[in-house]
């Protein structure tokens, strides 16, 4: 049995072929990232397919408005899971995109093990209360969201009347339900994912949340069809094959992703690292007819998807019209270079001459050719976030290490007068992270310590005037406030762990870090609503639960907009 080297070892061995952190860990590039086959939504479904998971809806108790509960059962690799969703209706005025709200139309939980009567009773009380509830480790994920205000009832009306959704309007929606949170990993008493055995089907990062999100999407389809059926039993129809997979789950995402990215540098390193390794693999390939065909199909599919989605730029990012045009240009460039000895590398190099959003679009297309086994990807993504190692460094050695690892601090403006303009707070409204102006609101012992780059800069200042032969541990005793910075410095975060982004700067744009993570999740259709939050869609075009029995297809991204040709209206 061969052992795979740890991720950082692989990155070191391949370093000459990888894009450097100075490029891909900058806000501009992080904020250009798109979903790939490595994204969690896709790897979860491939695992389900590869390991022959089985699933079905086992209970549905809904009234004529779709209020009640649904239960789905998943059997995966000898493990049993249930997804329990409680549904209600709210007045439109109570709908909100923010994670903060008092009530939701859908609240749900993913649990491991049998759904006993007493557990169901506990869930019925605690799940709708969300973070005000209290759970135990049988519960893995807690989720909530609302129906699409604009389209849900409209689509129910169409299905009830025996028609499929109206193409022009409904296809723009992209989702039936919009989620606002998928909590997991020890919050509110939920099970800590670190406790999963290595071969547990949900051991890979975010797999539990993405199984929950996939089943959450199922709730949308099932309740819409139920409501249509109740409304007009004589005429109602189900979604036809063009529509049955079209809708994904909407999601609204706020500032919480930023502290997460800063606090989990090893995970950030793994996420960027596996993508860069995969890209290097693809670039090193010689062309093959099969890969060429795959790539050309991707061009076509992506082009159709963005063209049919349509629309202008979504500041600060480019919109579907621009993306469709770039896919077209990439396809044209490909025609000219595909006979080169390393054609995928040539295409990548062509894309590097384009703006970063176009480059990352091409990266997303190229990675469709990656053949890294899923088991290896999962393994590389699992990171140990143990405490930093104890250190025997001296002050002088620490200075040298700082210079080696953080020589770029000055370049990102840590010395600027606005470098500490913001501090990060936690709102008293359901623990939501927020930014505050340091000059107008005193942090007074309430600051979330994610100002790591500023701390490293201050550490550097104190280290340079300290005795270079002094033990760093002794220095730490004298300057305990440098503890976080020292831990950060001595820990092995890997080449991509530290985003070159001062999250406290006045000009920090949270959207960039958010987008990187959302792309890694597999989200698309990025639609910023401000500097701080955005809307996205997930699982649009993905297979459905009952496809598990017939086989899932991984080529579901960039779904074509339904043509409506089979509609009977």
């Amino acid at each position, binding site marked *: 049995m061969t052992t795979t080297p740890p991720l950082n070892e692989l990155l070191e061995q391949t370093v000459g072929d990888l894009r450097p952190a100075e490029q891909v860990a900058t806000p501009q590039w992080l904020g250009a990232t798109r979903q790939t086959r490595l994204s969690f939504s896709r790897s979860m479904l491939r695992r389900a397919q590869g390991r022959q998971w089985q699933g079905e809806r086992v209970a549905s108790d809904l009234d004529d408005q779709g209020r009640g509960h649904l239960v789905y059962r998943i059997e995966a690799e000898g493990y049993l899971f249930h997804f329990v969703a409680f549904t209600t209706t709210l007045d439109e005025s109570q709908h909100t995109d923010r994670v*903060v709200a008092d009530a939701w139309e859908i609240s749900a939980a993913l649990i491991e093990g049998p759904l006993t009567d007493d557990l169901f009773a506990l869930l019925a009380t605690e799940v709708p209360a969300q973070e005000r509830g*209290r759970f*135990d*480790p049988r519960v893995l994920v807690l989720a909530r969201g609302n129906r699409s205000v604009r389209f849900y009832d409209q689509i129910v009306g169409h299905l009830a009347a025996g028609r499929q959704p109206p193409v022009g309007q409904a296809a723009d929606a992209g989702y039936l339900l919009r989620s606002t949170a998928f909590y997991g*990993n*020890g*919050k*509110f*008493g*939920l*099970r*800590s994912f*670190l*406790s999963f055995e290595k071969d547990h089907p949900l051991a890979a990062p975010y797999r539990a949340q993405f199984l929950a999100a996939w089943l959450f999407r199922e709730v949308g389809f099932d309740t819409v069809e139920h409501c249509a059926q109740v409304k007009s039993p004589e005429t109602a129809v189900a979604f036809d094959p063009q529509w049955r997979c079209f809708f994904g789950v909407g999601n609204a995402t706020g500032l919480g992703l930023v502290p997460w990215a800063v606090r989990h540098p090893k995970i950030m390193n793994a996420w960027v690292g596996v993508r860069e390794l995969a890209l290097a693999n693809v670039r090193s390939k010689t062309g093959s007819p099969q890969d060429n065909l795959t790539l050309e199909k991707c061009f076509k599919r992506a082009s159709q998807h963005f063209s049919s989605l349509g629309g202008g730029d979504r500041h600060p990012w480019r919109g579907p019209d621009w993306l469709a045009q770039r896919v077209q240009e990439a396809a044209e460039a490909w025609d000219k270079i595909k006979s080169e000895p390393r054609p995928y590398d040539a295409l990548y190099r062509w894309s590097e001459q384009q703006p970063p959003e176009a480059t990352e679009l091409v990266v997303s297309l190229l990675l469709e050719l990656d053949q890294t086994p899923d088991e290896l990807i999962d393994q590389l993504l699992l990171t140990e976030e143990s*405490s930093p190692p*104890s250190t*025997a460094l001296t002050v002088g050695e620490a200075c040298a290490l700082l210079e080696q690892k953080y020589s770029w601090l000055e370049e990102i403006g840590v010395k600027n007068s606005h470098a500490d*303009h*913001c501090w990060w*707070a*936690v*709102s*008293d*409204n359901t*623990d939501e992270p*927020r*930014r*505050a*102006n340091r000059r*107008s*609101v005193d942090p007074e*012992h*309430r*600051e979330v*310590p994610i100002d790591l780059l500023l701390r490293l800069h201050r550490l550097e200042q104190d280290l340079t005037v300290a005795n270079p032969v002094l*033990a760093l*541990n*002794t220095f*730490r*005793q004298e300057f*305990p*406030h*440098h*503890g*976080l*910075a020292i831990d950060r410095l001595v820990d092995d975060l890997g080449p991509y762990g530290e985003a070159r982004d001062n999250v406290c700067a*006045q000009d920090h744009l949270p959207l960039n870090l958010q987008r990187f993570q959302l792309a890694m999740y597999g989200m698309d259709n990025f639609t910023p609503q*401000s*500097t*701080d939050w955005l809307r996205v869609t997930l699982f649009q075009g993905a297979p459905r639960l009952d496809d598990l029995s017939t086989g899932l297809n991984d080529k579901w991204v960039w779904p074509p907009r339904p043509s409506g040709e089979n509609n009977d209206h």
Partner: protein
Amino acid sequence: MTTGLVLVAPREIVDVVARASQVLSCEASLASSLAQDITYCQVHHGNGVKAFLQLVTQGPEVFVSTLKKAQELQVSDRYQFSWTNPIPFALLARLLNERGNQGFIWEDQNAAATGTDLVPGLELVAGSNPSGTPNVMQQALAQGVALEKTTWVSLGEIARSFLTAEATLDANQPVEA
């Protein structure tokens, strides 16, 4: 859940102790380290959170100075420690484990010690941590850590001051959002 007890994930203890410590004037670095100490002790020896609550009743100055004293264990060229005000074992357990991994153990350590036990001093000698001990942390991650509800609520009450009023944040947006 057993009446009177609440199951808590280890990360929750880390988060809440870190917040509570910052509220009690502890700088974030020290607060973060303390949160790891308390959680480690709670999981491996029990009474970590209770020790924290006892310590904070002594006021911010004693609280912070006691933490700094406990951190002396990290300095690798010292082997004898003596404290005028005894240190709760909760602040020492994790650091002692680390020193054990470096080849120095506290030979006289009471195997049954819990976080609230007070330690006036200790001497490290060459040795290593016992091997083959059950993975208590793994069990805590899978099943949660049982805490008395009153203890958990008291900790949460201190940590609540870490939160900033939504209205304050709304009124002071740092940038045009």
